[in-house]
């Protein structure tokens, strides 16, 4: 069994295996990644830092590409911007 860690996604505690990307954690938690300018839900597309569709607010910083970040214990992720 891999080690796990817990982070907060939109206020909810989510437990994921360590080594999980934040984008994967958002998928596990069934959360939209962000809303587009015209209000449509968006999710990770390229998974490699190119398309910027996976942006979310991580530890208070807006527009982080979650496919390029690993989950850390105690991290906060917000997608309801």
């Amino acid at each position, binding site marked *: 069994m891999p080690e796990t860690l817990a982070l907060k996604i939109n206020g909810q505690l989510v437990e994921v295996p360590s080594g999980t990307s934040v984008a994967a954690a958002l998928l596990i938690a069934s959360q939209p990644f962000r809303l587009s*300018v015209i209000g449509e839900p968006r999710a990770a597309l390229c998974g490699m830092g190119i398309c910027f569709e996976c942006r979310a607010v991580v530890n208070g910083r*807006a*527009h982080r590409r979650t496919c390029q970040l690993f989950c850390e214990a105690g991290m906060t992720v917000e997608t309801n911007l």
Partner: protein
Amino acid sequence: MKSFDILVVGAGIVGSAVARECALLGWQVGVVSGGTLAGSATAAGMGHVVVMDDSPAQLALTAYSQSLWHQLAAHLPKSAEYEGCGTIWVAADDEDMVQVPAKHALYARFGIETNILSAAQLAHAEPNLRRGLIGGLLVPADGIVYPPAVASYFLAEATRLGAEIFPARAVSAAHGEVRLNTGAVLAADRIVLAVGADCKLLPALPIQRRKGHLAITDRYPGFVRHQLVELGYLKSAHTLTEDSVAFNIQPRQTGQLLIGSSRQYGSTGPEIEPEMLRRMLDRAIEYMPSLDNLSSLRTWTGFRAATPDKLPCIGSASGLSDDATLWLATGFEGLGITNAPGAARLLVAAMTAQTPAIDVTPYLPARMKAQVSMPYA
């Protein structure tokens, strides 16, 4: 040969404003638009509608133009993104702060209301500015627009009133005749050169291209609330031969932040110069440290049309040309968005022998004759 009351060469914001003003008079207007706004200052600039006090003549023209923007605001389409967000001139030290009461009094003489801000009021108005700044001056009636959308609106208005657009370049414009690169020749009683920094049609114009860098960020709504400019800006804008940077940041309606500004002479290519961009962004981060955490989406450059005395050329070309059909509306340096509505009105007043709303003597192109040999120093 097709013939008009007036032909406007150049359809940046200034040419478009002139075309609209003339169409409103009921004149037959032709506009030689150069095709697209690509490469124009209007597509590159910041769109800050700002009353500027670098000289009494500049203050008179910007204050007059600001009042016209207030009248226009209700008619502009949404795409023009007009926001009456006001300007805050930011004072970093005592030397800056001594300017504040003087600026307040000077603006008051031109009927422009301003509020002096203490350090605490400044921090409250703009929480992302660094601590330790000592105050500022709020100019509530300043605003921002998206310049290319305004230019399109002016041009659409002119067209609606009957103006005809020629998407071509003028290869010559003199003595009532404009030749296009398409081979067509147009005739008019008057020709207005609204050609920005491109002086090929009248090489006697002593205009230099002054390069500026800009950067735009991703969307961070509420991060900045007013257009913020450091009080050292005028020092920077008037450091005449040296390259300079100043803190100047603008909140767009989208939540994006437009970051300026740099000024360079002698750099003629449109490429980004990493060293200049770095200096400009470092200056912005000095005033607003948390900018360092934001992501920038795009950087670009544009060229201001600078005259030796920093004032535009509005009026008959007499003195620079013996062609009585030729009129000028160019040389707006860093204030052509602000001043386009005022310039258009003043030019039309001169062409129709009406009394202008403000004294136009300081803007008459004839003064350039004496300045042709004046160094840019």
